[in-house]
């Protein structure tokens, strides 16, 4: 994409330094878009090659972790002649604040894109206070 100055290459994940992984291979941090509206926060992540069933979304002590496994075994009967991208799993974590209602998070996966909708807790939603005149 010539008109974009953003990073085109996949970035290796920085979240995995705390604990060792049991699966072999590289881990990448998926590119994400984060949008906020008055009622919710939306996280859209690119997870190309991830099967829907291998997606793991966990919340532990206000840390939301996305994880997706990719089959990185070589294609049978072929030899890799030229490589521009590496194949590996995806993982990335986000800190959640108490503004998010953690019980109502929804996830949708389609064509390699994961969309998370994190509704805001009732107490932080903007309230309109009518001013009465007497």
């Amino acid at each position, binding site marked *: *994409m*010539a*008109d*974009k100055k*953003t*990073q*085109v*290459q*996949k970035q290796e994940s920085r979240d995995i330094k705390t604990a060792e992984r049991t699966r072999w291979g590289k881990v990448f941090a998926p*590119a*994400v*878009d*984060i*949008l*906020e*509206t*008055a009622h919710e926060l939306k996280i*859209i992540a*690119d*997870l*190309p*090659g*991830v*099967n*829907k069933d291998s997606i793991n979304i966990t919340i532990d002590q206000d840390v939301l972790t996305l994880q997706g496994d990719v089959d990185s075994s070589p*294609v049978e*009967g*072929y*030899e*890799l*002649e*030229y*490589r*521009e*991208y590496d*194949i590996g799993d995806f993982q990335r974590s986000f800190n959640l604040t108490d503004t998010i209602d953690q019980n109502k998070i929804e996830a949708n996966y*389609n*064509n*390699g*894109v994961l969309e998370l909708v994190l509704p805001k807790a009732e107490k932080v939603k903007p309230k309109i206070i009518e001013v009465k005149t007497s």
Partner: protein
Amino acid sequence: MFYRTIDPWREINEIQREMNRLFDNSYRPNRLAYPAINLWTNADKTMVTAELPGYSKEDVDISLIYDVLRLRGSRKAPECKENECFHRQERNYGLFDREIKLPFLVDAGKIDAVFKDGILRIHMPRAEEDKPKKIDIQVK
């Protein structure tokens, strides 16, 4: 006490090999082109794979000009509605147009492209006329 002996020449050779690999012309991936592709081959066919998350079959246009594969497509950014704002925008949007020279001529009629979980795989069988032919030499 035991000490591991360190061979400085081995270290230097290792660095030299790494440098040679870095400046080797035969492998120089195009780091800026989008989408990034991998090319797989065997004697009879070749396959190009590309990571195109969020694209559907209709968004990508694949064409072949002699031995050059052309990939074109576009993806729209999510629309920012009223009272909505982006905190981060790392995903790529817009148009892409990319040409990839294939290692051999392929049979244009038998190209098969599959989209699964955001990965595009284009299978291309080698053209019959391009396959190496064995010629028996008669010795008289």
